[in-house]
Every structure is written in structure tokens, then in C-alpha cells.
């Protein structure tokens, strides 16, 4: 598996990771009411390195008054909003996967708090902030979020 500089081991995707972790095979929608497109998960690809992504997400988090918790493993980031919302503090988790040395997939999900607040946060603050680092090649944003198309 790929090891990055400074021995920082980012999670690397083998083919089966891609198959099991991305949309392809997931039975949880049997239990969910909403269409998949409405689910609050953002997944995008970027050519920035994992370290750059972590730094970028941290700065976005701080700017938006989130407290970042880096006690987990090096390739995931947890953050909690400072102010208390409708269902407690909004919590976000970002996971960073290295597909290839210059190709990284980032997955952002809500980990706690109110879904409506999360959706609002995503559309009004998170997505605009990440716009410049998401890899796109002319594709429109899908309702699920901005996804990258790499060639």
C-alpha cells in the first residue's frame, strides 16, 4: 500500500475498498426514507495531497467556528461546531482516502446534530469553501454534492 511522506500512512484504497465504500453496494437505503441523492454525504476527488486536504479542512473548520478533533487516525478529521444547535452541536466527519499518489477522495458526513442544520451548512458554507480544490472537468454539480471526474 502507498505510504506518503514522513511515513504518514493515509488510508489507501484497494479495488475492494472502492467497491464496498462507495455507493455501489450499500443496503442501508432499505431502511431509509429519502432518495439517495438527498443523503447528506459529500464525496469528491481532488488532486491535492492528503496533507493539504487535512490542512484545508482544518482551516475551513476553524473559519466556520468548528472545533477540530485530531485524536483519531491521521486520515480522518472530526469537527464539532462551537455553538449548540437544535439537536446539540453539529458534528462533521471527513475521511480522506488515497486512490493514487496524486488522487485523493474525500468523504464528508454528518456525525451528530440536526440534519437540516447540516444540509444548510453544506450548501451555504462547506461546498463554496471547497470549490477551488475539488477536481472537476466540466461536470455540473449533482444534487448529492460536487463529485469529481478525473481523466
Amino acid at each position, binding site marked *: 500500500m502507498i505510504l506518503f511522506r514522513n511515513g504518514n500512512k493515509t488510508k489507501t484504497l484497494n*479495488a475492494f475498498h472502492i467497491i464496498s*465504500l462507495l455507493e455501489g453496494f450499500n443496503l442501508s437505503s432499505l431502511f431509509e426514507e*429519502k432518495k439517495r441523492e438527498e443523503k447528506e454525504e459529500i464525496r469528491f476527488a481532488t488532486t491535492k495531497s492528503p496533507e493539504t486536504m487535512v490542512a484545508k479542512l482544518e482551516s475551513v473548520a476553524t473559519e466556520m467556528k468548528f472545533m477540530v478533533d485530531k485524536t483519531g487516525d491521521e486520515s480522518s478529521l472530526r469537527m464539532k461546531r462551537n455553538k449548540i444547535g437544535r439537536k446539540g452541536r453539529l458534528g462533521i466527519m471527513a475521511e480522506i482516502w488515497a486512490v493514487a499518489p496524486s*488522487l485523493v477522495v474525500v468523504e464528508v458526513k454528518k456525525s451528530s446534530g440536526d440534519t437540516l442544520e447540516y444540509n444548510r451548512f453544506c450548501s451555504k458554507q462547506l461546498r463554496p469553501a471547497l470549490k477551488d480544490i475539488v477536481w472537476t472537468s466540466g461536470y455540473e454539480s449533482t444534487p448529492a454534492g460536487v463529485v469529481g471526474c478525473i481523466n
Partner: protein
Amino acid sequence: MVERRKHLFASLLHCCDLELYKQSRGLEDPEILARETVFSVSEIEALYELFKKISSAVIDDGLINKEEFQLALFKTNKKESLFADRVFDLFDTKHNGILGFEEFARALSVFHPNAPIDDKIEFSFQLYDLKQQGFIERQEVKQMVVATLAESGMNLSDDVIESIIDKTFEEADTKHDGKIDKEEWRSLVLRHPSLLKNMTLQYLKDITTTFPSFVFHSRVEDT
């Protein structure tokens, strides 16, 4: 006497197949299913509520057909999916193109957080063994990767995909025969437990609250 009447009734049904009639008869003995799966009796009953919901979506016959399964997964019956097909086939242990509650419950039992990891390893192996040859070949892996990326709205170049698969086989194919057999799959998964992430549905733990069942059993004991 009762048996004969049942038989007559069955033959008067639209589907004259007695097997089919039995399969669609509903929740007869939750205790038996509870004993033979990881679910408790109340979880079986809750699961049955979900089953009723899914199986009545298109044809209200107490059975889930492929279309209803797709509807339940994608909220639309317009979506074809390699995985939905594979999963449906694995659930359909009777191989008659429809899922009765028993098949539904037994298959979902594997996805319970408390199910034995060996069951999850076995199920996932069979899932990925698209041609059911007893091993996973490179071409099957590529097919699944491409399908997954397409469903996610991501496009990777063929080169990148090939190199990902190369690295995967480098690690997984310890016997160097170009295929991944059950043993190799097992070791790969034990080294990378996150590969089984999609084999566990946390929802199943809360199923009694998500799908409350209003059946009361005075003699039920939840173990």
C-alpha cells in the same frame, strides 16, 4: 380435513403454486426464525413490518420481486444495478426469482452487527464472485470497480483503474494464480476489516424502534 381445505384454497388462488402460497403466508413462527438467525423474536417481527412494506410496493402478494427490491434500494425502479442483482440472487436461496420473508430474514441476519464475521466473509465472497466460479477474477473486479465508480458519478481513467487492480491483486493474490480464492479473500479481509463495512447494517440493531410491530405475544422471551 383442514389440510384438504387449505389445498383447495391454494389451488383457487391466482398463483396455483402451493410452494409460492406457503412462501407468501407471512409470519408464522417468529421463534423458529429467531432461533436460526441472529435476530431476537421482536426483531423478527419488526423485520416483518419492513418486509410487508417492501413486498407490497408493486404487487401485494407477500413476496418481494426484483422490481420491489430495486424500489426499496433506490427509491426508483428505473435503476439497474450490478450489485442489486447480485444481492437479490444471493438472498434468493430458493432460486425462484422472488424473496419470501424467510429468505429475507436469513439473508439480512448476516448483516446484523452481531452476526459472525465468518458469515460476512462468506457472503461478501459470494457477492463478488460474479460468475460464481468459486474464485474472484480480475475481470470481475474490474467490472465491479467500473460499476461502482459510475454509480458514484466518478470517472477514473482506465490506466488508474488498472493500476488500482494491479496493486489489489499484488496484495490479495498470494498464490499468484490471477484469481482470489476464498482463503485469499479471508486473509485480505482480516487484514483490512473496513472491507466488510458494507456487510454490517447498524440499522438492524435499532429495527424494533424503526419498525414497531403491534403483535403481542404473552409467552415470548427475548434471549
